């Protein structure tokens, strides 16, 4: 019994084992709208995220009210008319890492391409998404995530301005960058 206990404890606090969960609340997220005559981006550094390697859970969300495009009147209209953040304040992704079996301390220290599959929700509309990203474990034991994906407005019933239709791209490019700490 004692032996098992000691083994269990060693396993719990083993230096060589990967930490099981990493978390952040200040990741950065950027969307870029590339329309023929007008390109602009929106940024926030309030990305919250959790990567649990033990459970194979990836969970990220952003409070859409924190996204700034540089023009405050445009931000207000974006929140009010298009994203309707009073009713749908968050964009969220919850899923699993497809190639979880490739993940160990060595591959993460080298940097590893990962694919997360799950549900992406914005404006109250859920969509299945596969997101390609890259995970790297740095010397301080922090997990660095970079990922890019696309969001089509019509997939989520997000309207486009009608008067000047070229103002907003149909498909927005989203880039996220986060440094996750051991939980």
């Amino acid at each position, binding site marked *: *019994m004692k032996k098992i*206990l000691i083994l*269990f*404890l060693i396993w*719990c606090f083993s230096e060589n084992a990967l930490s*099981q*969960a990493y*978390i952040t609340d200040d990741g950065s997220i950027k969307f870029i709208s590339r329309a023929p005559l007008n390109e602009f*981006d*929106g*940024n926030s550094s*309030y990305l*919250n*995220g*959790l990567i*649990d390697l*033990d*459970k194979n*859970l990836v*969970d990220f*969300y952003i*409070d859409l*009210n*924190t996204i*700034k*495009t*540089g*023009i*405050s*009147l*445009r*931000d*207000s*209209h*974006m*929140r*009010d*008319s298009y994203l309707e953040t*009073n009713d749908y*304040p*968050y964009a*969220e992704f*919850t899923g699993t890492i497809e190639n979880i079996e490739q993940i160990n301390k060595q591959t993460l220290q080298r940097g590893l391409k990962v694919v997360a599959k799950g549900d992406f929700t914005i404006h109250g509309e859920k969509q299945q998404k596969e997101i390609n990203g890259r995970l790297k474990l740095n010397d301080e034991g922090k997990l660095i995530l970079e990922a890019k994906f696309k969001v089509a407005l019509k997939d989520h019933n997000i309207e486009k*301005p*009608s*008067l*000047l239709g070229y*103002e*907003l791209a149909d498909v927005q490019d989203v880039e996220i960058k986060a440094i996750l700490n051991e*939980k």
Partner: protein
Amino acid sequence: MKNKKYYCLALILVFSMVQTSYAQLERKLVNKNPDVELTFEAPRNINLLTVEPLGANNLHWAIMHTFGTIDNGGQNLWGIDNGANIRLSFEYGISDRWSVGFGRSSLDKVYDFYTRYHIIKQKLDDSTPLSISAMLNYAVNTSNYKFLGTENPTFRQRSSYFGQIMLARKFNKKLSLQISPMVAYFEDPQDIFLNNSTEEINAALGFSGKYRAFGRSTFTVQFIPNLTNGLRPNVGIGYDLEAGGHVFQMYFVTGSSLNEQYLLSSQNGVVGEGFRLGFNVNRVFSLGSNE
């Protein structure tokens, strides 16, 4: 002893469960009680400034335009053939609360310089139930009166001042109202100027309203009863169309004035027959980085 062992084991199990039994993150808002925004769709509603602020480093460029009266019908293309008044203006946000601007109206070639300060902002949870802003302006008439064969008025005689306090409340997603006590002071209200008041001091109330009927279409109203000079009130009804931060405003209004001093000191048409078509185009640019 045995109990103790099980107790230890249970503790360790609980401890290891606490470490891992962790599902989704709890969703939390960054700001639980933000300022109310979009009390009005743009910094201006028809002809009057509102409590709607400009962000820091944002530049608001506007063209305002009124035509002749519509009562002559299609012959004059409902007033579009008649002399229009055009105002161009730029307003720059120094901070999220303070902005400065200047404009030029073609009627009497008036240049005006103004500043707005947003003192109080309405909060989403109604802990602050209304927004209060103040605005001051100085204007100068730059028309040449040489053709009259008299001396041109001096710079001081051409000068006028204006101040207003704007009190506004967004009642819900659809309805916002603003009431603005305002006063204009003319150094020397001469007959040759194209406004009508002969008073130095002209006080009025400005009422602005918007009703967002459906989608991104908003109906707007303005009513400016004069309190001192006996001139007919300015009445306007309009329609705002918002498209991704641009706001296009169309309206019918009973006067051609576009700057504050003249709105308070010009005769207005009778509602119904003295209406003119007008429109504003608003664009906002960013002069800073948004990173």
